[in-house]
């Protein structure tokens, strides 16, 4: 294993998993960087990425109308720190805008409404079709939140989150355990990204749209923090649940082959604010991506 990646993770006080690989259709290209890349990790909101792909495949098949308007009730709305999750009233928007909220802000309410419409079976079918055999989605965000509440003995989500963040309690939740909750591997995530970037995950039109949505992701403190250059495009999806902090994405330098990278972390400290752990995701990504950079063949 890469000792420089190990140093980055140890220094940040996190357990880390990583996989990075240039995005190319050529199967003979084996250049890659891995750090426990095949070990299953609880994926938190990373499940929203394959969910998006499954939704796009349903649109491609003509089963979902992306511009149909839907109304998300404020009742039974999955809580979360951003987006529709934080609003107080019913929200009406097109289905594709709901999907975009899920991806750009990691909006939990949006994600659970999409998962409810599409169904877990449909999502599992997409995972199988794309060869993501190490990835299992067992439920949505509300399901993870229920696990956290049960495991902390809290009565509501706010209390549960506070208990989980208490450094003296050192509580564990099944929501952090790959054996009990939705899980993936770093390698499966770069495989999914490669499929999206090579137009293999859905129709070329849908794949192009997914890439553009992922570029509009608002959180820049993780992957993007490792590439602070205005001419470098970092398109990603974060995953956060208590001490789990992940981001998977594709880094594109001008005139270079894009590189898919997945960094998953589990911090030693349980606190919600841990900027060193967020920044370590960017540092680890840069450490892995830099040796994989190469010019595009003309």
């Amino acid at each position: 294993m890469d000792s420089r990646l190990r140093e980055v993770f140890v220094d940040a006080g996190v357990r880390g998993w990583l996989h990075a690989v240039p995005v190319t259709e050529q199967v003979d290209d084996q250049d890659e960087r891995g750090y426990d890349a095949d070990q299953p990790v609880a994926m938190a909101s990373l499940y929203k990425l394959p969910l998006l792909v499954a939704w796009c495949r349903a649109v491609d098949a003509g089963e979902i109308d992306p511009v149909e308007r839907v109304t998300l009730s404020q009742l039974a709305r999955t809580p979360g720190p951003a987006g529709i999750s934080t609003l107080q009233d019913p929200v009406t928007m097109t289905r594709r805008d709901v999907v975009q909220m899920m991806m750009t802000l990691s909006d939990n309410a949006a994600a659970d409404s999409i998962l409810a419409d599409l169904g877990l079976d449909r999502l599992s079918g997409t995972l199988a079709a794309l060869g993501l055999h190490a990835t299992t989605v067992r439920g949505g965000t509300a399901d993870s939140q229920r696990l956290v509440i049960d495991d902390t003995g809290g009565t509501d989500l706010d209390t549960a989150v506070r208990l989980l963040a208490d450094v003296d309690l050192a509580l564990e939740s099944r929501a952090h355990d790959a054996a009990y909750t939705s899980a993936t591997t770093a390698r499966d995530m770069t495989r999914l990204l490669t499929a999206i970037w090579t137009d293999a995950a859905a129709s070329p039109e849908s794949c192009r749209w997914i890439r553009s949505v992922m570029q509009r992701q608002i959180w820049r403190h993780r992957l993007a923090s490792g590439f602070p250059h205005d001419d470098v495009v970092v398109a990603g999806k974060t995953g956060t649940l208590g001490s789990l902090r992940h981001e998977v994405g594709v880094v594109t330098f001008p005139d270079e082959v894009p590189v898919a990278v997945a960094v998953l972390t589990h911090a030693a400290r349980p606190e919600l604010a841990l900027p060193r752990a967020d920044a370590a995701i960017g540092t680890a990504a840069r450490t892995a991506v830099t040796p994989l950079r190469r010019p595009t063949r003309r």
Partner: protein
Amino acid sequence: MDLLRHLRFFVAVAEERHYGHAATQLQMTQPPLSQGIRRLEEHLGVRLFDRDARSVRLTDSGRLLLPLAEDLLASAARLRQTATTMTARRVTRIGLPPELGAVAAAVTVRLHDALADVDLDTVVAPTETLLEQVRSAGIDIAITRHPAVVDGLEAGDVARVPTWLLLPAGHAHDSRESVPISTAADLSFALSPRRHHPAAHDLIVDTLRRHGHTGTTMPVEPAGIAVTVATGRAAGLSVDPPPPAAGIVGHRIEGNLLPFRFRVVTAKQSSARPRAPLRAWASEANVALVAACEER
């Protein structure tokens, strides 16, 4: 024939590329070694070495068989070693971080009483080193600073030990026993090097800043912290009261805001030495640690 003995000949000659040197390594004379290699070659039906007047070279077959021979010898060594640990009196190796101070003695004494039929062997090392050694089964149980990455390990309850704020005697005259963190707001803090336990270190630093500390931190080996404070260059934290030497005063910290946190850590039962009752030892260590910390 004694296959393992002859494989040892094979590996020695392959390593030394010289019968005389190999015989010396095996503490035997050359003729029985040469005969042994011949017997092995007959037994396997394969020529292992090409010899001429000056040198001994592995044949292609010999090169292919060498790693298999080495594997067999390594397995045999492991078998003997495991058998030995089954008969020997058990030694529990316990790792302790230097910041535990005098609490270490209290824990060890309690553990010694609880595990009367076990010999205790203690190792003092920084938390990151201890965690590596628990993972590689170099030590059985470690008390480590919390928080730390304990992924894949068993970790017990968090025990908090209040710390003493060590200040240079001349810093600020304060007769109270308990003082707020802000008393040392403008002093540098002498802390064990961050690499010893990055997460626990950062928690201390973040807590200092949360309570208005504006100074820097200074990496100092735990044994040197009192001296650094005494020379007036920094404040320090310690689970033990300051030594009765001139130059340092110790205060309790209001609200006990900067405790050192510790946890008992062991390998998961399945991986490490299978016969060691690790879980029982770890739970005794946990009880001993929590009790020793509560006395503070």
